Structures are given as structure tokens and as C-alpha cells.
């Protein structure tokens, strides 16, 4: 770290090296490779700290990229007519539905606190670990067996970023990740395809809840709905709205 401006001064007086810009460009592009080399080879406490910091960085990067993408695509949408057409008598009435949603959420929270859950599928077969998680062998001689891959459908949130692959204990394959569920309203017998907000509880185990594994009987959040099929067999999630 220069303590004075002698570098700038020299540059002002004599200019840059002839290959300066070329070298700079190449060094910067090599930086990515060197970073990944370091990340792979580091061990011990240093590695832990570094990986933690890097994970946080990655999450930030993902968020900014997403925001940029949204900004770019928005210009196209402005020309198109927005969705959600409503008749004239409903135009000035946004506030009502939002209030209803909020009051519904409050009611459901109250119900949950009181522990009163009228669930359509009360008894669900418990799924053991061997069924839900598959062992993945790693290591030079394929002897280590601490990684697990989820074999059932799961839900990961919007801002989900994978942990560094070296440290991932639970792998949730992209093919088994679902964002939408077919929710049936029991009274109206109408089915809607709605986005999932989260997994509330998986009856088999709390571990599965934290992982976001969706099996028959799982309660997914939003307006609570309970899953009624085996999604890994059907390829879609069918649920019944809990009213």
C-alpha cells in the first residue's frame, strides 16, 4: 500500500507501460480462477471464515442480478396492458381484498396458536429417513457417506442460494423443486394453481420441514393448504385449502 502518491506522480510524468492495459485486463480475468482455486484448497478455520463470507457475497450478487433483470424486462411490459383486469365497480377497491387477506392471516395465526387444526388428512404414513434421503458417496475412494440427496418433492424459497458444494450436506435437486401447487377449495370445488409461499409443517419430521420436503400430508403456507397426493409420483402437487 503506497504511503504517498508517487505511483500517480510517475504515471503523470511518464505514462503507462505499453502493455499495462492488456496485463491489467488479463490479471482481472484470471482473478476469478484464482479465487475458486483458493476456495477449493483452503482448509481449517480460515476456510470456514472465507466460505461464510463468500456465501453472503453470492446471495447479494444473486439479488442484484435479479433486480437488474426485472428492471430490463419492465420496459417491455409497460407497452402491454397490465394483468388483473377488473370491472369498473371494482377499480377503486384494492384495499378491501388486502384487508381480507390480512384478517385471514391473523385468524389462521390465532387458530394455530390455539392448536386447533382441522386437517383433512389427520393420519399420514410417516416416512423414514432411508425413504426420503438417499446417501451420496464422495471422496477419492467413494468411502465418505455424509451427503444426502432428497428424493421427494421439495420447496425452496425465492432467495435460495446453494451452500458451497463442498459443504452441502443436503442436496435438493432442481428437478424436484416446485413453486406452484394445485389448491382445491373444498366448499366451492374449484381448483386454482397458486404459488407456494412456504412449507409450514411436514408431519413426518421437523427436519423435513426445515428442508422444505413436500410429501402427502404436508401443510403448505400462504393460506394453509394440505397436500393430498404423492408429488414425487405424479409430478404435480395437489392440495386442499384449509378453511
Amino acid at each position: 500500500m503506497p504511503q504517498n502518491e508517487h505511483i500517480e506522480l510517475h504515471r503523470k510524468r511518464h505514462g503507462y507501460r505499453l502493455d499495462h492495459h492488456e496485463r491489467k485486463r488479463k490479471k482481472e480475468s484470471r482473478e476469478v480462477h484464482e479465487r475458486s482455486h483458493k476456495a477449493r484448497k483452503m482448509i481449517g478455520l480460515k476456510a470456514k471464515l472465507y466460505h461464510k463470507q463468500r456465501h453472503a457475497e453470492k446471495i447479494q450478487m444473486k439479488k442484484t442480478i435479479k433486480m437488474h433483470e426485472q428492471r430490463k424486462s419492465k420496459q417491455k411490459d409497460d407497452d402491454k396492458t397490465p394483468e388483473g383486469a377488473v370491472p369498473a365497480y371494482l377499480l377503486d377497491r384494492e384495499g378491501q381484498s388486502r384487508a381480507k387477506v390480512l384478517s385471514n392471516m391473523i385468524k389462521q395465526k390465532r387458530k394455530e396458536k390455539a392448536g386447533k387444526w382441522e386437517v383433512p388428512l389427520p393420519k399420514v404414513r410417516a416416512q423414514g429417513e432411508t425413504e426420503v434421503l438417499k446417501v451420496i458417496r464422495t471422496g477419492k475412494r467413494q468411502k465418505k457417506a455424509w451427503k444426502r440427496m432428497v428424493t421427494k418433492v421439495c420447496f425452496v424459497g425465492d432467495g435460495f442460494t446453494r451452500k458451497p458444494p463442498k459443504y452441502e450436506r443436503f442436496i435438493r435437486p432442481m428437478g424436484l423443486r416446485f413453486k406452484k401447487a394445485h389448491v382445491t377449495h373444498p366448499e366451492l370445488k374449484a381448483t386454482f394453481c397458486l404459488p407456494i409461499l412456504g412449507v409450514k409443517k411436514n408431519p413426518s419430521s421437523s427436519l423435513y420441514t426445515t428442508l422444505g420436503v413436500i410429501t402427502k400430508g404436508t401443510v403448505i403456507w400462504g393460506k394453509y393448504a394440505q397436500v393430498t397426493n404423492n408429488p414425487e409420483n405424479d409430478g404435480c402437487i395437489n392440495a386442499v385449502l384449509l378453511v
Partner: protein
Amino acid sequence: THRAVITHSSPFQTYVDVERVLIQLQDETGEVLGSPFDVPLDISPDKLQLVCNALLQKPVPYLFFVKDAEVVSSLGSCVQELGLETEQVLPVVYQPQAVFRVRAVARCTSSLEGHTEAVISVAFSPTGKYLASGSGDTTVRFWDLSTETPHHTARGHTHWVLSIAWSPDGKKLASGCKNSQIFLWDPITGSQIGKTLTGHTKWITWLCWEPLHLNPECRYLASTSKDCSIRIWDTVLGRCDKILTGHTHSVTCVKWGGDGLLYTSSQDRTIKVWRAKDGVQCRTLQGHAHWVNTLALSTDYVLRTGAFEPATATINPQDLTGSLDEIKEKALKRYNSVRGEGHERLVSGSDDFTMFLWNPAEEKKPVARLTGHQALVNEVLFSPDTRLIASASFDKSIKIWDGKTGKYLNSLRGHVGPVYQVAWSADSRLLVSGSSDSTLKVWDIKKGKLNADLPGHADEVFAVDWSPDGQRVASGGKDKCLRIWRK
């Protein structure tokens, strides 16, 4: 008072010793028919009907009322319930019903896809020949009713088509969009007539044509918008004729009355009465405590159908025939017969859960305040014979009120979500309602009960209309398809 004493003197002859009572037949306005005469107390409505037909020489079905209570089984039971004296002359009011009877719709004959966004407004033409629907995908589509297939797609709007209105002669359709433009379409070719009418600065909330009997050419159109103004357009020249300002908030509804008065309701809690000829404001009707959402005139139905008489409807709807003068005369005759002696009555529904019944041509004070709903009133409609008012509200119920006095009659419950729109059948015996719970329900007014439940839509039902010839009901909603229902 004696009970009826039946003594059998022989198996073939029953000598019935019942009370007799003097009744005086009156019509709704109080005019007496003939002189008081003597009838047995247990006379049934059928026999009364025969008497009326004989006296009036018109074979029309009637309903009979003693002091606003309908005579259902026999005059005697009615009198007993009311506790009236049989010594005096009893006034019995007769009400002619529609000669034709509209059959209730029971099945969905077709589900017309085509719109790529929610269907926001649906309207049958005054004769019931054409059907038009406006949607969030900025198109207005015309549908061929005999084959129940798409006919034309009218493109031109740049935003959601919020309201559509047929001209009373059925030759033009006006549609207003969220970008404050109004287009006129020809239903036969599906192409635009004339220029685009621009001028409003915010979205169009309601469109209303001038009644046929005032101008058989159907030239003038009134439009209201969120920019607090009402514009009267000359559709032949394609320009704005008058601008009526005065409201301070969005104008929600406009009705062009048959006497040359315009009624407008607004979110500033007032209803203003204007003279259509020169655009001068006559009156401001105040009383509501929140936004006034909707207006209904007692002569609404007859102004909408113009010269078309639903009783003369045929299986295949026809266009109006005759010269302009003939049409104007027919429309005027129909209008006068429906309006009756008094002036037009106006009912307004509001966000303050109540409605007011007004006599706007005469006075500023309301005739009655109709309370009872537990959520905002979204639509009110007079029945085609102006005797009843139906109000649809977000509290999932529909209430029926008397059209003259505003007295509460009946509540129709059954929907599980806010009721958005209602439509009367042409004979005023049936009512269809569409709600956000995606079902339509047909109600029998006489019994006060549900006649048919029509599920089928996949999402909220935004617009409902019953064709003036009574054959079909059309409904459109958020699930982007238009459904046609028949008996």
C-alpha cells in the same frame, strides 16, 4: 266472526254457509274498477282473476293484494291474518302480470372462449339478437347467438374495456376503456363506426345512450369518467357536444331519463340531476354517507329495449323494422305505459350500506331510505314492470324491495361470496345473480327462493345479462370465458 260452516244435506250437494264480504277492485294507482260487489270469503285468486278478466276484457294474469298482503290461497285466510273487519268494503288491489312467461335457465349451453383476459362487461342488444362482451384484453367481441360461436373481434382499444352500451335501436355499440377512449362499433361487420371519441382524461366508468323515443336516430351518448366530468357526445359528427362538470370526485354512473333529464351519481356522495338539452344542473340530491356506486331508474328496462316489446319475441331474434317515426312512436307508447302517471323514480345504492329511493323530477328529499344490507351495495335494479327493486351487495345477499314505497320485502341468500351483478328476466318473475364465488343463481321472486344454481365458471363472475327476449343468460368473468345459459 263466524267460521265457515259446511252442512251436508246430500252427497251431491254441499250447502255451504260462508260469510260474504264486499270488495272493491282497485288498480295500483287507486282507481276503482266498477262498483263494490259481493263475494264469498273463501274466494280464491283464480276466481278473482276470472272476475277481473271479465270486467277489464283483457286476458292478462293478475296478482291480488289486500293492504299489501298477497292473496295466495283464499281471500278469507288473508283477511284472517290481517285481522280486518268483514263488515266494511275491502279494497282489493289487482296487479297485472306480464302475459308471457320467461322460463328459468337451467343449463350452460356453451362456454365461449376467445378472450385472453377476464371478461369485464357483457350486454345483449335491445332485441336480443346480438351479444357483445368487453374484456381486459382490450378487445370487444361480438358473438353469434344462433350458433353460439364468435362472430367478430373488435380491436382498437389500448386498455381494459370497462363499459359497453348498446344504442336503443341495436345498430351501434359504444365501448369505453381505461385509457379514456370511446369507440363505436357496428355489430354486423364488427368494424369501427366513425372516429374515436377522446376527451376524458381518466378512465370511463359508465356509458348511456339517449332514449329512443326522444331521438330515434340514437345520436347522443353520455359518458362519465373518473375525471369528475360527464360528456355528451354527438356520435354522428364524432365530437363532444357538452361537458357537464360539477362533481368533485369520480362519477360512477349516469342514466339518461325518458323525460330529458340526466341523473349522475358520484363518489362525492351526491347525485346530480341535469337537463339534457342545455346541460344545466337542476338539482343535487344529497343524503348518502359514502360513495354512490350505482343508479337505477324505474323506466330503465323500457329505455334499454326501446321499441322492442319482449312479449312479441320470437325464437330467432329479429332486428327492429319500420321507419324512424314508427319506431319512435312504439318506443314512446311503451315508455308511457311503463312510466304510468307519476314521474320516474330513481334508486341509488352506496358504499354506506344503504340505498335511497328518490323522486328526482319533483323534490330533493328522498322518498325512502332502504337499510338492511351489511356491506356495500354494488348494484340496484328496478324490475321491468317497476314494481320491485333488487339490490346486490357485498354481504352475499340480494334484497328485494317494493318499487313504489321502498318497503323491504325479501332477502335472497345463497351466495358464499360478494354478489356483483343481477339481471331481471323480461317478465319480472325471475332474477339471475352473479357473484365472486363463481356461481350464478336464478331466483324465483314469487316464492322468494332459489330456482336454479348455475355453477360452471372457474373464477369470479364479473358481468351478467339476461336477453330481452328471455331466452338466454350470458355471463362473463375472471376465468376469461363467456358462458351462455338456456332453459
